[in-house]
């Protein structure tokens, strides 16, 4: 591992050998948080530029050039060997033919499915229409029955009203009705015992009205 130190301006090359890695404590973040910004005393400090010796720089560049050249050659070799474009059997016509064949097959399967589904769909729609017609018929019947019932109810109401109309108090009979009412007080404040007898009045001692 190469460590370039600014202060010593020298290169220390050491091979790090860790016999028992579990005995080492990993470095933890022990700085102040990022969002606290630069300290006032360090605000205008200009850190010194790293100075790399000439020989070191040349050596690094040579190594890097070597690395890039080798990587490029490997990449080119693999491309030439495995890329579809350079395959000996690569034939555009063949590929298109294969694709068309595959497409035709898929299309056939799809058409078949569509036909199957069409039968099912038509069956379902027919069933739904039948069901709707039946439901509508049922509703119509119900409505007719309801109308009939309502009419009967109304007729009954009218009949009762007509009957009651005989007892209505007209201006002619008003005087008699008032006379009768004044002379005959009614009391609904009564209780019923087990035999069905009415006990009139708020308490047992109250007189009969």
């Amino acid at each position, binding site marked *: 591992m190469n460590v370039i130190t600014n202060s010593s301006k020298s290169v220390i090359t050491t091979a790090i050998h860790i016999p028992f890695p579990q005995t080492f404590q990993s470095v933890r973040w022990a700085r102040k948080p990022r969002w606290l910004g630069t300290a006032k005393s360090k605000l205008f400090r200009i850190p010194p530029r790293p100075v790399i010796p000439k020989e070191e720089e040349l050596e690094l560049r040579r190594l890097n050039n070597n690395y890039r050249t080798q990587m490029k050659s490997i990449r080119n070799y693999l491309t030439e060997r495995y890329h579809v474009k350079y395959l000996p059997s690569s034939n555009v016509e063949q590929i298109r033919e294969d694709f068309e064949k595959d497409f035709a097959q898929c299309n056939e399967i799809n058409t078949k499915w569509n036909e199957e589904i069409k039968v099912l769909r038509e069956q379902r729609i027919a069933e739904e229409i039948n069901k709707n017609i039946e439901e509508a018929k049922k509703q119509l019947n119900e409505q007719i029955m309801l109308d009939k019932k309502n009419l009967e109810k109304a007729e009954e109401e009218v009949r009762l009203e007509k009957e*009651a109309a005989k007892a*209505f*108090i007209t201006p002619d009979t*008003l005087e008699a009705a008032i*006379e009768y*009412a*004044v002379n005959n007080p009614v*009391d609904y404040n009564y209780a019923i015992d087990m035999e069905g007898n009415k006990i009139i009045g708020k308490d047992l001692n109250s007189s009969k009205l």
Partner: protein
Amino acid sequence: MITYELMLVLRVMPKPELVSTLKRIAQCIYDKQGIIRKVENLGTKSLPFKISIHGNVYRDASYYLMEFNTPPHSVEELAEEYNRDVDIIRKQIYKKAAEEFKECTLDEELQPAPYRKDVQELLKKSESLHKPKFDYRTGLDYYPFQK
């Protein structure tokens, strides 16, 4: 056609005056193209509290009930008119509710509580609210150790 009930609390009057008051009240209904179905006397009794109205204090009153039909828009006018009548202490116009038929359940109600159907239903309902009890699986109906 809506049937209304007119509940009247009239001041205590001698009979001729009372009759004329009732006639006047009825005439108002006839004037609004109404019909009267029933006039009823619910007796003369003391009011539950003293009422001061039209410059007088009343402690007793005659209670009367009238059933009538009028166009609904005239009900408010009638109420307003009766408000001005000095012989009327209180009045209220109600819509008459349709008579309901209810079956007599006295027999059922007289039974002791656990025999009543509604109580049994309540008990059944409450059972579902009970929390599950821990089962010790000792085969005994009591806990054999000291708790």
